[in-house]
């Protein structure tokens, strides 16, 4: 995989990397309105500067159990704005290459992970926002 910039964030005990070009910004979650009847993976609608984002519980989608996230990475997919709740955001770093995803991922993680990098001795899983959005509708983690 080619080298590029990645937003490194923590989901549960796992460190993930979101391709920087897929993330518009990382912002604090405010002004949240719930969506009745939505699956638990959808936290609600968050408004940032008159744009409305569908806020997804990234940790729950990854099967890590719901977390109290203060931050979200915002990302546009097919014209719709999504917020991906993140427990901690570390840094934006350049990663040269990702290898294949490790074997033995939980089924929830397996749906999300596209590859793995060994960054200064730490395993970082490559996750694309589209995969998180796609899994939010059929949450294996939420069912488990």
């Amino acid at each position, binding site marked *: 995989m080619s080298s590029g910039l990645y937003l490194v964030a923590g989901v549960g005990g796992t460190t993930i990397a979101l391709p920087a070009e897929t993330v518009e910004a990382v912002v604090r979650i405010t002004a949240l309105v719930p*969506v*009745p*009847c939505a699956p638990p993976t959808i936290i609600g609608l968050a*408004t940032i500067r*008159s744009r409305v984002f*569908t806020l997804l519980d990234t940790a729950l989608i990854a099967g890590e159990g719901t977390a109290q996230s203060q931050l979200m990475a915002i990302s546009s997919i097919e014209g*719709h704005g999504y917020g991906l709740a993140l427990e901690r955001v570390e840094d934006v770093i350049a990663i040269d290459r990702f290898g294949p995803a490790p074997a033995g991922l939980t089924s929830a993680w397996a749906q999300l992970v596209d590859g793995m990098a060994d960054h200064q001795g730490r395993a970082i899983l490559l996750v694309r926002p589209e995969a998180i*959005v796609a899994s*939010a*509708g059929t949450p294996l983690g939420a069912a488990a």
Partner: protein
Amino acid sequence: MDDLLREFVGETLDMMESVAGDLVVWEADPTDRSGLDRIFRTVHTVKGSSSFFDLPRITAVAHAAEELLDALRARRSVPAAPAVAAILEAFERIRQLTVAIAADGAEPEGDDAALIGQILSNLRGGLALAAGERGVEEQPAIPGAHDQVGPVTVVPQNWRSVRLPVALLDQLMNGVSDLVLGRNEVAAQLRAAGIDPAELSAFERLSTTLAQVRAAVGQMRMVPLRQLFAPLPRLVRQLSSELGKDVRLEIEGGEVEIDREVAESLRDPIVHVLRNAIDHGIESSERRIAAGKPAQGTLRVSARQAHNRILIALEDDGGGLPLESLVSRAIADGHVAEDEAPKLTPDRIAEFVFLPGVSTAAAVTGVSGRGVGMDVVKANIEKLGGQTHVRNRPGAGVTVEFDVPMTLTIISALAVDAGGQSFAIPRSVVLEVLLASSDAVQRQSAGGAGLLRVRGRMLPLLVLEELLGLSKTGEEADRAIILCRVGGNATVAIDVPDVRDHEELVIKPLPPLLLTLGIYSGMSLPDSGQPMLVLDVDAIAAGSILSDQGEEIPAASMAERDSELWLTCTVHHDDRCLAVPMTWIERLHDLPVAALSRIGERHVAMIDGQLVPMVVTGAIPEQGTIRVVRIGDGVRRLAIPIVDVGQMLPLDVEIPAEDALLPLIGLAQHDGAIIQLLDAPALLAETERAWPRREKGVTV
């Protein structure tokens, strides 16, 4: 003119303007090959697209110009003035023809042989001259003045346009919404600092300008209906010759503007209805003459705007609908019971054309009559939040009317509060709003299902909080019941904690994740800055109750549904009898005169601890009690003093009428007495203007 041709016209005019400039620049500096290449490519493009649209005159002129340009490109020398003049002339001709297409949708008749000869003669003659000889040749600079081009038209202003990506427009719209939210926040901060924003003239100017910009941005999505109507003449000509009918098409109201998206969705329904009209509406010339009609049939397409809705009427002067076969088909398909049939009014029967599987055709033709159709038309219009109506004039024709919203991005909605947040219900599905405490409604339950009895009809009742899984808040007094039209003809009642407001909402699409919930159809970000979900009442009803019932639970007979029920009463100012529509009556009260007060010209009554505006039309007694009828729509209410209550009657307007004191929809008669039919919504609106309702800081 269809969109593609329109685009061709716009592009060609733009290109002709820029290419003429390129040519002059190139003539001045022949070493600049890129200019000539650009010109060549432009002419090539025009040639290609004009042949695609079958515009032979433009194709021929462009082809000749292209050949000459090709030769000039090969020579790499200074162009001769006559060659440049001939090419300029070719551009001018293409421009004129394009303008004519913009006006008429087709190439005008004419002959370009002289111009083409002139262009090609440059190929044979002195293509290029030495620099010293430039301008010496004495050919007429602008040849072909004798060619027939028709009167020269000035380019219509609306072609002076720019093409923008829709994403840029959306970005602009978002930016404007941002500005509005920012303005609101500044206003709030000003108020907190003890400054009245209304008194700050700079702030006022900002607000006014912002409102104008917002309106202009909204306008950007609009297109004139002319664009939608333009291909119709060709279509009608083609269909009528195919079917051997002689039909004339009249179009009116092309200037009416409509959201581009709505216009797109109207195309198929309009074509479908016109096709039906030509195929089975309009008779053959012989039969028309025998019936005493002009041999040529007439189709009329007209559009007009009423507030934020567009009404499109498609009218033919054919033989009208075959009512008998519609009835027998409706009976055969089980839409109507056989013993009900004789009671059906002709208007009601005409509506059967919208039932699935019903065809208006005696025979199936290649054009229409396969029984797929009007039900799909109706469904498509309803998808837009619109309605369809049909009016049949036996022996004289049929009118099909589409009533659609002007724009999909802004809807008029009722904001309802539940569980501490607001939801929107589009006005297009709302039939009426009743107070839950009104005497007109009775709640029942049967086998766990909630039911509501309203004026002789039993309707399924849904409680909003239960639908959405929200906890009910204690406050029960103010609950309202909203009757909504769902799935075409059924009605469902939704019990909501509070109707807050009527709002115009800018609707944004929902991501698929939320759309698939089948509860919401869109979302909006009102000025409050809190996102509001729009309830998809149709889908909710289909999902929760109507799946096995389909139609509303029949309680009222067809006949009863046709005439509205009215309560007659005698009022102070007049001997005549006033009738108030039952739909709008909340209840009757006997009030002590002391409960009334007079403020200036107006009266107000204290009813159940609330102040209710009174519409007083005569003298009020000094003491004792008076009887009032309270009407309302769940949000607004008023009371009218009456002398006595008469009876409940189904009445229809017989003649329209006006009255200085009370708005009427017309007069009816019953047992020899003349009855004035009150226009309750108009009276509510009038009273509201006199008594602006203030609630939760919102002035309506």
